[in-house]
């Protein structure tokens, strides 16, 4: 993934500042609670939601099992329709391919429709290094780009910003990127949207190259599909002469008909809409309409490694709806940036360590960035058992050893011995009860715990001892 995120501190340290940022927490609470309540209503409208969820899961599982076959079919279909397919093993290769394709057009700027895959590989930074300017056109991505910021949510990248902050960014930054913000710009949503529209229109009309991702790719027809809400994506997909789409290999579905499931589950899960406002589909090129040149860059970047993991591979079912972010209490407090990846929240906590490996501090900490409450699994429209994958990845991190985990394993082993010897456990409980008046209110090692909470006072006797004194199995003793 992008070099931008290299050297991120572990999740707990990155989250610490966010937890104390009152504005950020208020922004996130307001936004996530609004979306989650709307989503619950939109989902409740469908009587067959459980079956749609199961169908989505099965379609994805089937496709992943035969991924090689469907990707080859896709390549043949795209080629037959007049497009060109490129295969990229990793971020560097994908960036190289896109940069070369842009240079071949003689252009030095591109317009972009919001895309997680190009964020993942750090395409904008890679293009910038080659002297090519990449302009984000999704409203929230524009806010992030103008604010020299990072996205903090899959679907609402500027979720951490409120209207006042957005107005300030527009006023300060728009002028140096193109058309400046109108005089006296207020924080009214309509004014902010109009400022963005004027700023972006200039870019759409000038651009010769567009760059997109995709929500789905249909193997049988070679059709690429983008769901979006604003129409900016459609501008990027239809106005330029050259269109380059960078898409993760897991986004393929076998047939056009498979889309019927996701056309229902994705909008409701992501934006709580019955149908997303813009669904753009394109198949290769057509003489009279749209870009005359189409390139599809198929991105692996760790996906086949994840596919090899029996438990972890279910993360590749993800359709990036971000419902799991909006219900996650940890995401709500920590914010998206703490996850050190373009994929934040519960899905990011299982996807990033799989795509990037668990060697870095941030990736080794992500599987623990969850209380395992299960809310994410409950809302996932393709039934990814995120808690199961988190625990599975924790096993890998613990096995890898390293900072803290050797000591932890030793402690768990020692506790394990006691727990396998009830007499030793009972003796330990007795000793602890006898010395309870001497226990300090804050324990060494329990520092993080006692910073915010009182430790419970140990009782005078354990349950085990009470039972011995007051009951023998099945009978009350005389008390």
């Amino acid at each position: 993934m992008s070099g931008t995120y290299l050297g991120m501190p572990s999740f707990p340290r990155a989250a610490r500042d966010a937890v104390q940022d009152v504005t950020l927490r208020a922004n996130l609470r307001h936004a996530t609670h609004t979306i989650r309540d709307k989503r619950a209503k939109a989902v409740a409208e469908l009587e067959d939601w459980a079956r749609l969820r199961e169908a989505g899961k099965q379609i994805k599982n089937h496709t992943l099992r035969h991924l090689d076959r469907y990707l080859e079919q896709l390549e043949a279909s795209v080629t037959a329709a007049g497009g060109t397919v490129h295969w990229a093993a990793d971020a560097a290769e994908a960036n190289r391919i896109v940069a070369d394709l842009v240079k071949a057009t003689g252009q030095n700027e591109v317009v972009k429709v919001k895309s997680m895959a190009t964020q993942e590989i750090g395409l904008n930074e890679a293009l910038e290094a080659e002297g090519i300017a990449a302009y984000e056109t999704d409203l929230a991505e524009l806010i992030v780009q103008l604010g020299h910021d990072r996205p903090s949510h899959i679907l609402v990248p500027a979720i951490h910003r409120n209207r006042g902050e957005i107005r300030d960014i527009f006023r300060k930054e728009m002028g140096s990127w193109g058309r400046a913000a109108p005089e006296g710009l207020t924080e009214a949503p309509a004014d902010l949207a109009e400022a963005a529209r004027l700023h972006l229109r200039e870019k759409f009309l000038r651009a010769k190259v567009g760059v997109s991702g995709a929500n789905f790719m249909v193997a049988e027809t070679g059709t690429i599909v983008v769901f979006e809400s604003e129409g900016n994506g459609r501008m990027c997909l239809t106005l330029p002469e050259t269109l380059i789409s960078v898409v993760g290999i897991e986004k393929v579905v076998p047939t056009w008909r498979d889309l019927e499931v996701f056309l229902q589950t994705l909008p409701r899960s992501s934006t709580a809409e019955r149908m997303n406002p813009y669904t753009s589909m394109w198949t290769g090129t057509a003489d009279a309409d749209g870009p005359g040149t189409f390139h599809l860059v198929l991105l692996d970047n760790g996906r086949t490694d994840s596919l090899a993991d029996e438990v972890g591979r279910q993360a590749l079912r993800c359709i990036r709806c971000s419902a799991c972010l909006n219900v996650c209490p940890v995401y709500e407090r920590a914010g998206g940036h703490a996850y050190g990846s373009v994929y934040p929240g519960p899905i990011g906590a299982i996807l990033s360590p799989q795509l990037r490996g668990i060697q870095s501090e941030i990736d080794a900490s992500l599987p623990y960035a969850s209380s395992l409450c299960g809310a994410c699994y409950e809302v996932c429209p393709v039934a990814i058992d995120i808690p199961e994958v988190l625990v599975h990845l924790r096993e890998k991190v613990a096995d890898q050893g390293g900072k803290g985990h050797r000591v932890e394993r030793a402690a768990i082993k020692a506790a394990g011995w006691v727990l396998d010897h009830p007499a030793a456990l009972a003796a330990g409980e007795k000793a602890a009860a006898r010395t309870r008046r001497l226990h300090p209110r804050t324990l060494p090692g329990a520092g993080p715990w006692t910073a915010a909470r009182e430790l419970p006072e140990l009782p005078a006797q354990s349950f085990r001892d009470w039972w011995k004194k007051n009951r023998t199995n099945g009978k009350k003793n005389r008390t």
Partner: protein
Amino acid sequence: MRVALFVTCVNDAVYPATGIATVRLLERLGVEVDFPAGQTCCGQPQYNTGYRRETEPLVRRTAQAFQGYEYVVTPSGSCAAMVREHYPKFGETALPARTYELTEFLVDVLGVTDVGAFFPHTVTYHPTCHGLRALGLGDRPRRLLEAVKGLELRELPVAEECCGFGGTFAVKNADVSAAMGQDKARNALATGADVLCAVDNSCLMHIGGILRRQDAPQRALHIADILACTEEEPLP
């Protein structure tokens, strides 16, 4: 009817009153209770932290300890969920089918919602994640509480959100955990209830610890502690 009490390690060492209350409650309802002394810990903290190999012997020990009992009852939603959800992954399938969380056992097996309790206080109920989502307890605990004489139940805002305990999560991600717990405590206090109650003492240890740190006028109590109370035998 004879049942085995799976008291859980946290209750055994830190909250024996909940174990005692469970025994009193079940006996009052005519159930004969055994406490198999070979039980220790179900292995949940080890398993959830990523120590599968270290969990294995505890799964075997727990299954061994409760062999031969038709019903195993535990006053802990998360330990019941550990047995039910994860023991099959260790090849242990007999125990999960016989293990019941306390409120589940009362409502589904004994078929009672009015357990004859008396508790003249205002109470708000926090549905813990394992009770709510892993076990699907639904409204069982609430029905039991609503049938308690003298008890007034108050709605907890944002009730279904995790309190932030999460076992070792509370230590590994202490800041986020505390923030979640403080929000939960704030919502609980907003109800004005005397007591916050749940089916899991580990969550209550966390929320209750925050309440006590704030010197808040609200006590955290396990549902068994409430259901065991009668006019003759009030809260000890």
